[in-house]
Each structure stands twice: as structure tokens, then as C-alpha cells.
């Protein structure tokens, strides 16, 4: 016996994103502190304006390799010592670079923060960049590149970027570089990247957790106050398109048990004024489980385990991608169903129900996203990276709820452009080629799976 009547919710309790302070030290380092005292933990995330766009030409992957090299030891302690000293304190460093920044982070018990931060600061201020460590990291990266060929999802993502962006545009080359570019990186390149881009004036240290603002600022002053340097940056255009009309590429993988499908085109920068309209539009199109594309491809047709769409938000125009993996035999059908959903998204306004599903979801999950100190630190890091206003988190939900069905239609018409769609399929051409040809989608090419 169960109850037929649907429950109705009472009023929602208020939620506020944790308040934070922002201060700038004498040497130019910015310190942001969000005090969250639920558990005796502190997450530290340091954002440095050293990005994959700063990679030297033909040395793509340098920013990532430089970030990873920070974990390989300092002048005072080698990589093993560094790892052990932090791990004995129950923590370890995460380090990585992406299109828009380098982030070095850790989560540590409050009681161990002072000791751990001393080591954290040491990795930033006096990395050793030992030749043998850099060579080892390069070899590991090359091994990863080989594995990519075996892994259809990664291969499809990467092939799509390479297909979308013009030759020579940085976004066409993988963020962490190709085999060729990684092989060409030397210890000197790493040292130069570090000297040019790792500077106090382009660094923000973020604390989220059980720590007061003045304590955190003092800690940074003590450990990073003596750090010096000036920032300079090259101007570049990373997001030029390769095609102006529709085209489709099959990346041949004859042993594929499924087709990995990517459909989309170049999107818009994170700072675009239509951001909130696009976020809601994408939720309806392919962002949610109950989105049009997933309900069609998965729940109505059973073609796939899941289908989704996203805008890859970057400082410049990252890709807009619809991504799914389908049974090989229905590849062409899945493409045409997807194209139908795109057309209908642009043809008329979404229903009130669809709109409120998207907006109430996005508003509701907002507090769930920020349960952990690491998630709060990471949100603040993206605020820094994209230069979002300080009231961004306080106004997020009202910005979402202000989006109308008309805004969504406008966003779909402006930012999803059927005539510019590009498609990459990683799959078995013997099975999928003919039905795809019959779609008459646009310029079709087939290439063998290869790494670059």
C-alpha cells in the first residue's frame, strides 16, 4: 500500500554561498578566503594565469608539463620526499593546467595546514625542474597518447576538436599536447614557462574551510610574501574555425563495438552576455537526463546508454558538443534524430514545463554543488579565471530564474546553427558509412585513427 497523493513542498530554507574576503599582498598575490567551519578541513586552490594558450609554438603541452613538474620536487626536497612529506600529513598536491589557467590544490586537516602549506608554497617558489623528472613525465605523457588510440571516447573528443578548429589554432591541438610537441619540450622550456607565467601578480591563493581570513592572509604572507616577478602575455587567436559549412568525418576503428558520435560547432566564450540563456537552453536540449536528446535517443529508441550536450566554457570560444555512443547499426538514425531535435529547438518556444524543469533544477542543485570545501575553492577559482563579478554566486539563481522561453528560443537560434554543424564519428566504416552517406549531411571524409 503506497500513497497516491503527490507531496507538495513547504517553503525552501534560504541558502547563501559562503561569504569570502579578497585581499592583495604587497608583492601582488591575491588571497581569497571563504570560511566554512562544518568540519576541521581546509581546501587550498592556487590559480596561476599560466594556460595552454601560453604554450610556445610547437611545444603544445608545456603549460601542463610545467604544472605537473611542480609535484616533482623543490631545491630542498626531491619528488619522493615531497610526496612523502605531504602524504604523512594526510594530503597530496593536485597540479594541472588547462586552457584558462594552472591550478595547484590540496585538502588537508586544519591541524596540518601550516606544515602542509609550507611545502605547498615551496613547490610554487622553488621548483627544481630536474631533467630526469621532466623526461619521465614526458615519457608518461607519450604513453598516455598511445592509450588514446585504444579509447574511443577520448579519441572522439580529440578528433572533434581537431576537426572543428583550423590548423594552427591552438584549440585544434590537444590541451596537453601531441606526441610530437611533447617530445620537443626541454627542461629549458619548462624553466622559461615558469619564469614568464608563474608570478605573484598573476596568482590567486584561495582557502575554503575552517580558517579565518586574517590567519590565511598571514600564512600566505609568511610563505609566499618574498616571491617576485612580472607578467607578460602574447596575443593569440586560439579558436579559428576549420570549416564554414557542414562536414562529417568518420574516424575508422574497425574493431569498434559502438560508434562514438560528436555533433556540434564552435561555441562562445564563457563571458558571453547570453551565458544564462545558453545554460538553460542547453539543459533542455541535452543537459539533463530528461532533456530532449536523451529522452529521444535513450528512452524512446534505446540507441544508447546516454546522450548529452554541453558548451565547453573557456575564455575564448570552446566547442558546443552533443556527445553519445550508439550501437553501430543505428549510427545514421541517431544522427538524424539529433538533427531533428536541434531543428525543433530552434523552431518554436519550449513549453512552460520544460522551462521550469531546467530553471528549477539549476536553482535547486546550486547548494548541492557546494557541499565540500574543495568544491567551494574550485568555484572561487573559476570566478578568478573568468573574472566573474564578486556577486556572481549570490545572483546566480535569480539570473537563472529570469530566463524566459523566449530567451531560450533566441539562444537556440543564435548559438545552435544547423548549417555550421560538424560531425565526427569514431566507428567501423564498413557498417556505418553507407547509411551515413544516405543522410546527405555534407562533405564526408574518412580517415584512419591516428594520433596526430
Amino acid at each position, binding site marked *: 500500500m503506497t500513497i497516491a497523493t503527490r*507531496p507538495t513542498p513547504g517553503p525552501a*530554507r534560504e541558502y547563501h554561498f559562503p561569504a569570502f574576503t579578497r585581499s592583495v599582498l604587497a608583492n601582488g598575490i591575491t588571497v581569497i578566503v571563504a570560511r566554512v567551519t562544518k568540519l576541521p578541513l581546509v581546501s587550498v586552490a592556487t590559480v596561476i594565469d599560466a594556460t595552454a594558450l601560453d604554450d610556445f609554438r610547437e611545444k603544445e603541452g608545456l603549460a601542463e608539463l610545467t604544472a605537473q613538474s611542480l609535484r616533482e620536487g623543490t631545491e630542498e626536497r626531491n619528488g619522493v620526499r615531497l610526496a612523502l612529506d605531504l602524504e604523512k600529513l594526510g594530503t*597530496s598536491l593536485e597540479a594541472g593546467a588547462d586552457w584558462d589557467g594552472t591550478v595547484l590544490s590540496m585538502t*588537508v*586537516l586544519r591541524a596540518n595546514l601550516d606544515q602542509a602549506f609550507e611545502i605547498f608554497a615551496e613547490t610554487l617558489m622553488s621548483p627544481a625542474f630536474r631533467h630526469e623528472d621532466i623526461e619521465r613525465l614526458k615519457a608518461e605523457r607519450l604513453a598516455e597518447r598511445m592509450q588514446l588510440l585504444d579509447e574511443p571516447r577520448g579519441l572522439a573528443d580529440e578528433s572533434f576538436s581537431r576537426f572543428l578548429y583550423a590548423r594552427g589554432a591552438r584549440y585544434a591541438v590537444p590541451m596537453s599536447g601531441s606526441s610530437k610537441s611533447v617530445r620537443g619540450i626541454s627542461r629549458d622550456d619548462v624553466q622559461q614557462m615558469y619564469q614568464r607565467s608563474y608570478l605573484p601578480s598573476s596568482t590567486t591563493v584561495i582557502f575554503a574551510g575552517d580558517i579565518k581570513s586574517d590567519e590565511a592572509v598571514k600564512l600566505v604572507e609568511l610563505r609566499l610574501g618574498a616571491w617576485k616577478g612580472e607578467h607578460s602575455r602574447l596575443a593569440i587567436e586560439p579558436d579559428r574555425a576549420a570549416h564554414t559549412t557542414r562536414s562529417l568525418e568518420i574516424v575508422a576503428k574497425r574493431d569498434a563495438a559502438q560508434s562514438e558520435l560528436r555533433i556540434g560547432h564552435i561555441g562562445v566564450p564563457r563571458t558571453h552576455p547570453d551565458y544564462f540563456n545558453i545554460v538553460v537552453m542547453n539543459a533542455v536540449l541535452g543537459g539533463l537526463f530528461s532533456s530532449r536528446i536523451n529522452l529521444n535517443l535513450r528512452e524512446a529508441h*534505446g540507441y544508447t546508454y546516454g546522450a548529452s550536450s554541453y558548451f565547453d566554457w573557456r575564455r575564448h570560444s570552446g566547442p558546443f558538443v552533443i556527445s553519445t555512443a550508439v550501437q553501430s547499426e543505428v549510427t545514421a538514425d541517431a544522427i538524424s534524430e539529433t538533427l531533428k531535435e536541434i531543428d525543433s529547438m530552434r523552431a518554436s518556444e519550449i513549453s512552460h514545463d520544460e522551462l521550469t524543469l531546467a530553471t528549477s*533544477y539549476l536553482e*535547486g542543485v546550486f547548494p548541492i554543488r557546494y557541499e565540500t*570545501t574543495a568544491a567551494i575553492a574550485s568555484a572561487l577559482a573559476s570566478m578568478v579565471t573568468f573574472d566573474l563579478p564578486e556577486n556572481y554566486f549570490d545572483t546566480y539563481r535569480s539570473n537563472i530564474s529570469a530566463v524566459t522561453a523566449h530567451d531560450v528560443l533566441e539562444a537556440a537560434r543564435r548559438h545552435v546553427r544547423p548549417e555550421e554543424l560538424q560531425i565526427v564519428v569514431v566507428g567501423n566504416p564498413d557498417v556505418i558509412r553507407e547509411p551515413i552517406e544516405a543522410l546527405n549531411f555534407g562533405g564526408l571524409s574518412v580517415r584512419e585513427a591516428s594520433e*596526430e
Partner: protein
Amino acid sequence: MQIPIETFCLDNGLLVTLSQDNTAPIVAVNLWYHVGSANEKAGRTGFAHLFEHMLFQGSEHVEANEHFELVQRAGGTLNGSTWLERTNYFETVPSNQLELALWLEADRMGALLPAMTQKKLDTQRDVVKNERRWSVDNQPYGTWWEKLPALAFPESHPFHHSLIGSMEDLSKASLEDVEQFFRTFYTPDNAVLSIAGDFDAAAARRLVENHFGGIPRGKGKPALVGLEVAERFGETLRAVVEDDVSLPRMYLAFRSPVFGSEDYYVASITGAILGMRQGSRLYRSLVREKQIAADASAFTFDLAKGSDLLILDVTGRPETSAEQLESEVEREVDELVEKGVTGEEVQRAIALIQTDIITALQSASERADRISMFATLLGDPALINTQADKYGAVTRESVNAFARDRLGADNRAKLIYVPRIREEGEAEAEIVEAMAS
């Protein structure tokens, strides 16, 4: 650090745990059913997981896929997962939507069958087959999920067969199977419900009683037979798989003490000494010093009956042969057995695991899921508050004794992935070049 635990049992046998934390206006609802792939009958591999999909296809008062829609519309997140011994379902919602989550879970526990149709079953069967292609067949090393348990447990054992299931068995699953499985296993006395986060305890208890109280107790489930196995394999088992991979990989499994037993914690610390993060033995020796491995890790399956497995997972570098990888990993294990570990290594492992526990408990959904785990597998939700201490009590002596007892050549199962020799014309120029460098 202690999280609050309040437990009660409904007359129908549903064990309920409340863990209140009003710091943020969100609440997690989490149900574990004590049924997993181990409970499948012969010829129906993959059924427990397919059944999990069917639980999102509606129930008496809920339309197909409405479960997802209602929770997302409420501003919540949700999912389910299937493992060898259990299946779980969970939602995290704004705290004013607690009743919605409870109502949805109660409706499918109490009245799933009226909503089941052949068409829904056929579609979800296709979805699951595509899930199999996506996660097993079209993934490098993806078959390890079925090959390792098959190697480590005898053919008659409930943990032996594939969790995702064979295409053939998935095709055979019928609506009668759905009905029988539901009546046997999806009963309140075979489930635990945990609620963590922002609620008023008295109100939450009333809601649980209202929504779940009317669901009748089950008639009992068939006992799993043949779970008991010897503590050790008695020999070294070895299976080699040629696969479309570029790098060799070895999974080295040991039969190990079941989840929650005193020695389980010793086994986990031993695993962390060998394979947790950069300071671990395998990483330091094989990745950093000898540079023959690209990555190394260690983990347990967390099985509470029969035997658990402690597993090392090491991927070679392109120029490393599978034989070399195998002998070097085993050399590290032999050395640990023969010479033992240092106190510093034990302390490092304890510090990392204890920090991970506290970090995980920040999230309401993690708290609820772990409470359900202890309630289901060990019968005591309050064990969540003893974990940090149990790891902390592990000593160098206990690790050394465990290693001598369980990591020897008489208790190893090796699953080795070897790159398939590519045929001419298939071999990519870039690959040859990368290997030469």
C-alpha cells in the same frame, strides 16, 4: 569526529537511520537493497542491474521517467547503482523536498509492478546492452570487470559471473523475471533507508512511517549458497588476455578478509602502502625509479561475505613487456612479504585514509550512502563513526603478519592484458615512432 546517528526499525522490517546536519538546506535519501548480481539465477546474468534500470520506469503513481523528472525539477540529483551484494538508489534534494524523495522511493518499493510493460523492458534491455558495449566491450581493459571475478571465484560461486551480464542472458530476461525478482528482493525487510542532512527528526520519522509503513514485509529470500571459499587460492592463478590495448596491464588479486572484519582494515592499509598515491611502494619503485609502469593503484572490492579481494592494478609503459611488468610487481609484493613495512609507511597510509574519510563525510549523499552500507552489510549504521579509529589502530606488526599470511604465491590471481599484435597496415606510424623514442 562523530556524526549523529538515530536508528529505528518499522514493523515491516525496514531499518531506518537519520543523521541530522542543518548546516545547508539539503537532504540526502539513500536506499540499499540487499540484492546484487550474486543473487541472480543461472542463465540470467546481468539481471540485477537491468532491474535497477526498470526502477526508473515508473510505478503505480509515477509515470515512466517521471522519477528523474520530478527529482530534477525539485532541484535534486539522483541515481542508482548495482554491485555484487547490493543495489542502491539515492537522491539529494533541497530539504523542503524530502517528502517527494521518500514518496518516490516508497511508491516503487510498494507498487512497482503495475507500471511494468514489455515495451519498457525491451527498451531498457537495449539501453543496458549499449551500456555493456560502452563500458566493457568498447573500452580498453573493459573486460577486466568480468574476467577478474571469474578468475578469483570458482564457477559455482555467486561472485563468479558477470555483473553487467552477457548479451545472450540479457535477451532472455522476461517480465516474469521482473515480477519474481521484485517480490523476492525488493521488500522493506531486505532494505535499509538512510536520510542525512537538513530535517527535523520527529517530522522525518513521521514521513517515513507514513510512506513506508504500509508496505508489507516480504516472504524472505533464498539464502545465497556456496559463498564460503578458502582464505587463499592455494596456488597462483594466471590468465592472459590479448586485447586492443597499447600498454600491458596486470591486475593482481589476493583473497582477503571480508569487509568490516578486523583484518579488513589491515588489508586496506597494506593496499595503501603498496598502491595509494605517489608515496606508495609501487609508484615509487615502478613508476618513478625503474620507470617501467605508467600508473599503479590498489583497492578492495569491499565484499562482506565469503571473501573480499585486495587488488593491485599496474599499467606498464610502452616499452615494458607484460612478463617484465608481472615479475617486477611480484618482486615488490615478495619484498613486502619478506622484509615487512616500516612504521612510517603505516602512518602515511593511515593519515591519507583518515583525511579521505573526513573529506568524504562533508557530503550528505556520501554520509547517507556509507550509513546504508554499514547497515546493510554489517547490520550496524553507527559503524560509520568507528572507521577512522579502526584504520588508526592498524600496526606495523599486523600489516607484516597479514602480508605473510595473504600475499604469498599461494594466494595470487593474475589477470594480464597484453597488446594484440596489430596486423600490417593497421599499425600506425606514430606508434612505432613513439616506441622507438
